């Protein structure tokens, strides 16, 4: 199949949204567009599995290359491996849920959906690009939508958050840009990931470029201490915006850390792996403890995102095949989980008009559907077996345990301990909002989820269960790709 479809459909949807006459049309066009996109992603998954089943072990499938600029050597070079397919699926799930939960948005509906779809377009393009320049182009494309989504439709100190996010991400981009140009000129003027992966890049140059790229992408994926945009950005964004930010945008960074920094610069990765492990272990623990102190539901999820994303960085830093597979699983799992979490918070906030945990209570009685979903996502977050969080974190720990020196062991144990803290804040948040007596009599008037919210939640819960109950398919998808990366690191 031609991968250009994956960016063609969002592009057409976005244009159609611009031309649409009224709000109803805008919503339905977006929904149809995102459903088509989900269908396409599933078709891609099936086609990918079939291709692999026939014994095609080429690293990238469905490759296409279109010449864009001859000097500097830039091509629209697309292709997918298991990692990309998983990420594309994740994006489609989050997109459709994001479109559904924003159904009742009244302010500038057309612009809202246009930007939302543009944001998804950037993510799709990013995940299929095999040319660093194009990858960077798609990474940057999402800056405008993020900024405007938070600044216009956000709440709280939205201008501050939008500015902070745009500038910090731009800072990350600046580092990435320098790193990419460094690669381009040391490796004989090529931006192509596959070409670069076979080029020998001198060790001393890897030591310079790796931190630039890793930190650059690290800003996107909330690498400690560059995570500070996350709590503000997520808490100020509109519901769909938070879902995209945490569910997809942060994964762009993780994917970049792995595919660009670690894969292309293995010497650098080995050299700096310990620092990555320390930073991600700090992020995991710091994020978890910081979450304990939060009373605002959105802040709770934002800080817990810092903690959860730390697991994927930890997995990357461990540099074993299982750990990297786990890191990737964690990206997918966290993407679904956090999107659902923000969606549920949005639903609750729309009804109660507060996000403060201590002002709510007994919501189970008035909105059973929403609170049930809230339970599921909370349990997924604390790693209950049967849900995706458990599978992912367990794989990371197993992979980490394969490194048997004291340093790695201590880091693994420290990270594993955060699960206890997670259990504390998750159970407390759910308990205080869902259980107990009804704190506010006026809540009795509140309605349970409407059809669009139910559908959004079901889509995401379906994803979480599909990974949690039958993780095999995801493992099959990710493990060969992780192996490819590990082979490169091991110098095979």
């Amino acid at each position, binding site marked *: 199949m031609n991968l250009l479809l994956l960016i063609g459909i969002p592009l057409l949807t976005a244009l159609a949204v611009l031309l649409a006459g009224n709000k109803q049309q805008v919503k339905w066009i977006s929904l149809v567009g995102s459903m088509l996109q989900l269908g396409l992603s599933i078709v891609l998954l099936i086609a990918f599995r079939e291709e692999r089943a026939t014994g095609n072990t080429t690293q990238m499938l469905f490759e296409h290359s279109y*010449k*864009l*600029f*001859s*000097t*500097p050597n*830039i091509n629209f070079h697309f292709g997918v491996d298991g990692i990309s397919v998983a990420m594309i699926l994740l994006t489609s799930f989050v997109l459709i849920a994001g479109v559904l939960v924003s159904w009742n948005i009244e302010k500038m509906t057309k612009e809202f959906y246009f930007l939302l779809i543009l944001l998804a377009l950037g993510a799709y393009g990013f995940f299929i690009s095999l040319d660093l*320049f194009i990858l960077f*182009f*798609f990474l*940057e*494309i999402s*800056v*405008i939508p993020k*900024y*405007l989504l938070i*600044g*216009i439709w956000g709440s709280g100190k*939205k*201008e501050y958050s*939008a*500015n902070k996010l*745009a*500038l910090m991400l*731009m*800072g990350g981009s*600046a*580092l990435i*840009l*320098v790193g990419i*140009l*460094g690669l*381009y*000129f040391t490796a004989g003027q090529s931006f192509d990931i596959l070409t670069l992966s076979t080029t020998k890049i001198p060790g001393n140059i890897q030591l*310079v470029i790796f931190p630039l790229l890793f930190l650059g992408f690290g800003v996107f994926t909330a690498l400690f201490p560059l995570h500070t945009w996350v709590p503000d950005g997520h808490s100020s964004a509109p519901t769909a915006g938070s879902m995209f930010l945490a569910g997809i945008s942060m994964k762009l960074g993780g994917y970049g850390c792995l595919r660009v920094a670690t894969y292309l610069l293995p010497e650098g990765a080995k050299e700096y792996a310990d620092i990555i492990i320390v930073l991600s272990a700090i992020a995991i623990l710091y994020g978890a403890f910081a979450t304990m102190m939060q009373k605002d539901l959105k802040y709770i999820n934002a800080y817990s995102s810092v903690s959860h994303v730390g697991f994927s960085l930890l997995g990357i830093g461990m540099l074993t095949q299982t750990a990297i597979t786990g890191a990737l699983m964690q990206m997918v799992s966290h993407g679904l989980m956090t999107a659902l979490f923000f969606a549920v918070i949005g639903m609750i906030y729309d009804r109660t008009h507060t996000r403060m945990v201590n002002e709510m209570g007994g919501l189970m009685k008035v909105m059973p559907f929403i609170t049930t979903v809230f339970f599921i996502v909370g349990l997924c977050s604390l790693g209950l077996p049967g849900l995706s969080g458990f599978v992912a974190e367990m794989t990371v720990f197993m992979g980490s345990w394969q490194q048997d020196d004291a340093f790695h062991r201590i880091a693994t144990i420290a990270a594993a301990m955060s699960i206890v803290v997670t259990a504390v804040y998750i159970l407390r948040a759910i308990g205080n909002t869902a259980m107990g007596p009804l704190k506010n009599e006026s809540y009795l008037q509140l309605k349970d989820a409407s059809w669009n919210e139910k559908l959004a939640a079901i889509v995401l819960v379906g994803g979480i269960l599909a990974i949690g109950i039958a993780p095999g398919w995801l493992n099959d998808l990710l493990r060969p790709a992780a192996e490819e990366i590990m082979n490169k690191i091991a110098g095979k």
Partner: protein
Amino acid sequence: MNEFLTLMKSELVITAFIFLLLFIKIGKGMKNESLLSIIQVLLLINFIAGFFFNKEGSLFGDMFHTSSLIVFQKNLLSLGVYLISMLFSDWLKKSEHLAEFFLLMLSALLGMFFMISSGNLLIFYLSLELATIPVAAMVNFDLVKKRSSEGAMKMILSSAFSSGILLFGISLLYGATGTISFAEIPLQLDNSPLQILAFVFLFTAFAFKLSIVPFHFWTADVYEGSPMAVTAFLSVVSKGSVAFIFISTLYKVFQPMGDMWYAMLVILAVATMVIGNLFALRQQNIKRFLAFSSIAQVGFILVGISNSGTIGVEAVVYFIMIYIFSNLAAFGVASVISEQSGKENIDDYKGLYKTNPFLCWILALALFSLAGIPPTAGFFGKLFLITAGAAKGGYWFIIIAALNMIVSLYYYLRVIRAAFMDKNENPIEKIKTTASVKLALVICGAGIVLVGLLSWIYEYIQSLS
């Protein structure tokens, strides 16, 4: 004779237009509206004609030479002038001296054409003066405003000063090399102290025209004082033309001094980007804001110029093309707003989106393009400049350039934030845009989006250089 007609075609067309305008002015009085439409049509003809019957060659013993790249550069300037005549038509219609305004503008454009084509120092100096003096008169075009006269005074004094320095440099260079021909100078260059001194003087003159830090002090006051159309002309067309001749002088004439001017360019580029950006952070007036932002943009152009190869030329020409669209769009929107509401401060733009969504989107596109954010063309323009600069391997230089993109994003976002996000009880009212303004804004917007994505445009520039 035939060669004279084809090679100097662009210049002859402009000269013919100037005479035509003179006759119109002398003859019966004509309504401003119809005069303006005639001028717009003429400028459009000039722009389109620029693409036909082009030849390469030189005239008058190499004093004047032209190539397909030079023709393309001239076309870009013509396009800029055409867009200016469309974008600022509201203001132009009200002007009492419409014909004179275009007489001056076309004279300056003629000077620029000769300047880009110049093949020796003498004609270069003459054409530079022709490109400068009419602009000083244009700056003074708001005859009733004191600031306008002040700006004109500053402009004429500082350009006279820079002309003096240029002449001094030319005479020293002539003394040191014994020739004024661009083709022969490089053969005589041996980096002797006298030649270096001469070069520094020449460089300074360029720096004045391009408002490179620390020769930028005239810029903000002149930009603020002049009418918006003139500010746009100064910051886009005038700057573009000087950048074109600057790069060809450096690359062709002073090529033997490459190492020296690379170091100079690096220092000045960093200073220009940093100072331009830092001053832009605090500006309230949109014109001053765009003035400082254009200083910072020149810093980025210098990054590209430091490449000293064909990639540098391509990147700079491409960037200036994008810059014409982006900056003119920004000035166009600012001008429409200031013309109808009299408001020129960034704070006045609060809540603009509610009343004027179209203008806001064009403004946002323009500013994002200036900041270098995709999918706008500015992203490609800026990245190619930085790639060209990185080819020489100065990592710190490139990191500083990349970090400056963050600072610039901050202040461009300030305007966007005011227009899109800030609440305001009394935003600027719905602004009526005439068809020609709207058309020009749409052209600019389309240019901003398409020039980057249509890669054949860049390939076309590559095929020229």
